[in-house]
């Protein structure tokens, strides 16, 4: 028994070493690309052109980054607004994922903006007609909200009870504001593309894009919670909240079904069904996206056995995420090429920066998990977090009971 444990530990350690080497290489390439980007400009570091002004950084770092952080508001709503407290054990890692996600979106934005040092202009120079203005404000405000939602973890670590008490009094309004801001932000990323009706290929362009972005974000948000739980259960040698994750996989499945239905209705509305069968690259990419991100996960998650198995959950959530990334990349890149008459493929520097951002995300997450009370228990089966780390609401109950 002991030797088996040791061999497992060894495998994990050697696995970590490989990852460390890969991470170091990525970060080194990212550092070179960063220097290049800020000393020689976007032209030297990216393959962006006048015909193709938005590339990988917008497509992945922003569109996917924000979408993949959607678990944060979804779970906050489930646990605190709908009061389904059994999901509490996964709330903290999810809020952490969302918070890091948003911080990294801002980092990505700093690379992509031509004049990042003027980003604050959006605070004082208003154009309420602009979707980008809405996006800018949502990023600013929701990142603040996420910081406040995550703050109890830090405050608790350093036992700053007074600050916690203050936060506690505003926790519910804060969470409701966060859900509203997320709703606006997720959908506004779809609204960004409403302005390019001819440019964006017909399979993707729809006046329902804001709704599509929102619904698919909820589906992928749940999938991200599953994915991240599976990974951290391996990395930190913890138990897995299989019953909760299986419930989340059902929510994800239902949202994907809603998403699929809306897409079909939309295609019918626009009488665009013929586009589904044209022999074109766009058609193949569309089917690949739909198969990976909608059909396959719905099929998988509809089996109870798969929903309740570790590998089933992991695989199912992975395809939801892959399909989601394909969707955002198709909309931002591949479905734009035909009209613009150019082809775009990111430069190695764009890829290096994107990979570096993802790597930093992973590192930051594991550091936070190591030094902050993110998970309920160190090892073994998960216990409800509230036993160890009383959450805001629990303090409330305690104080009320004390008063009574």
């Amino acid at each position: 028994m002991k030797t088996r444990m040791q061999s497992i530990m060894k495998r994990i350690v050697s696995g970590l070493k490989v990852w460390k080497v890969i991470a170091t290489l990525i970060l080194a390439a990212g550092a070179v690309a960063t220097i290049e980007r800020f000393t020689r400009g976007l032209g030297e570091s990216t393959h962006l052109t006048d015909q193709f002004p938005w590339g990988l950084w917008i497509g992945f770092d922003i569109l996917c980054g924000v979408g993949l952080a959607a678990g944060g508001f979804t779970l906050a709503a489930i646990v605190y607004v709908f009061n389904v407290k059994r999901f509490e054990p996964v709330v903290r890692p999810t809020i952490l994922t969302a918070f890091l996600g948003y911080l990294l979106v801002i980092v990505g934005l700093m690379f992509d903006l031509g004049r990042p040092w003027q980003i604050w202009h959006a605070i004082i120079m208003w154009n309420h007609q602009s979707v980008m203005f809405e996006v800018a404000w949502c990023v600013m405000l929701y990142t603040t909200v996420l910081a406040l939602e995550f703050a109890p973890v830090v405050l608790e670590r350093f036992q700053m009870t007074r600050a916690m008490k203050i936060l506690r009094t505003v926790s519910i309004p804060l969470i409701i504001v966060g859900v509203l801001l997320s709703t606006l932000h997720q959908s506004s990323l779809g609204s960004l593309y409403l302005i390019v009706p001819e440019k964006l290929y017909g399979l993707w362009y729809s006046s329902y894009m804001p709704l599509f972005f929102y619904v698919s974000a909820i589906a992928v948000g749940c999938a991200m919670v599953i994915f991240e739980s599976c990974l951290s259960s391996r990395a930190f040698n913890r138990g897995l909240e299989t019953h909760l994750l299986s419930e989340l996989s059902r929510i994800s499945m239902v949202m994907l079904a809603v998403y699929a239905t809306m897409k079909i209705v939309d295609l019918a509305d626009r009488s665009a069904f013929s586009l589904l069968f044209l022999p074109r690259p766009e058609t193949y990419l569309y089917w690949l996206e739909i198969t990976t991100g909608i059909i396959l996960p719905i099929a998988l998650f509809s089996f109870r056995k798969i929903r309740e198995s570790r590998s089933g959950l992991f695989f199912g959530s992975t395809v939801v995420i892959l399909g989601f990334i394909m969707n955002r990349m198709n909309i931002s890149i591949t479905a734009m090429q035909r009209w613009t008459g150019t082809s775009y493929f990111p430069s190695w520097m764009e890829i290096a920066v994107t990979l570096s951002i993802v790597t930093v995300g992973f590192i930051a997450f594991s550091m936070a998990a190591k030094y902050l009370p993110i998970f309920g228990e160190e090892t073994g089966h998960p216990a409800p977090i509230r036993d160890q780390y009383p959450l805001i609401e629990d303090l409330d109950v305690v104080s009320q009971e004390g008063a009574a």
Partner: protein
Amino acid sequence: MNTSKAMLIDLTVCIGCNSCQEACKKENGLAEGEEKTLSATAYTALEEYDGTYVRRMCQHCVTPTCASVCPVGAFTKTPEGPVLYDESKCIGCRYCMQACPFQVPRYEWGSINPRIQKCKFCASRIKQGLQPACAEACPTGATKFGDRDELIREAYGRIKAAPEKYVDHVYGVEEVGGTSILYVTGVPFERLGFKTEVQRSAMPALTWNALSKIPGVVSVGGMLLFGIWWITNRRTEVQRIEKQQAALKNHSNGEERI
């Protein structure tokens, strides 16, 4: 819109001499040398399609898409017609480039403090009562400067006077809600690289449809979320109290028995 200025470009008259680009570069202090496409150093350029020259430039839309999408309002449509860009506001998101239905805005990709570059419709010259440098330089009258209403009338007049010579369409009267640069041609527009499929109404309505729903989403959504929270919270509260009372009752029953 009566005082709004415009330019009528008659492609049947243009001989491709490139005087317009030369004059433009001189007026705006841009790097010299002929360029065949729009760039950060060419606000206008002549494209050739089988002997027909098409002058590309910012169309100075009546309801500009760039002005609506810019998060910091760096673009403004002046009453005289020009759509102007204020580089001091720009954050460099390039949404204007993405959104422009005519793919006009260019970027200084090589700069570490890049600006959007595009035709300014010689706004300062117009203010002084002069015509734009390109119109002044045009030797054949292919580019004509004037009031938009008058030029539209003139464009239709030219088509009516020589229907065998012109395609029966003035590009820019209705496209994306109208532009300040108008074209007439002898060769069908779609063969000259014109975006003929653009919608006939102004583009900003597309995003405004979504943006105008924000107050509704926030107020209805906010009330809904608060309502759900109140109900679910109350329910758990009631359950807790009931449990407590049941426990108390059990407790007191036990006491009585003793």
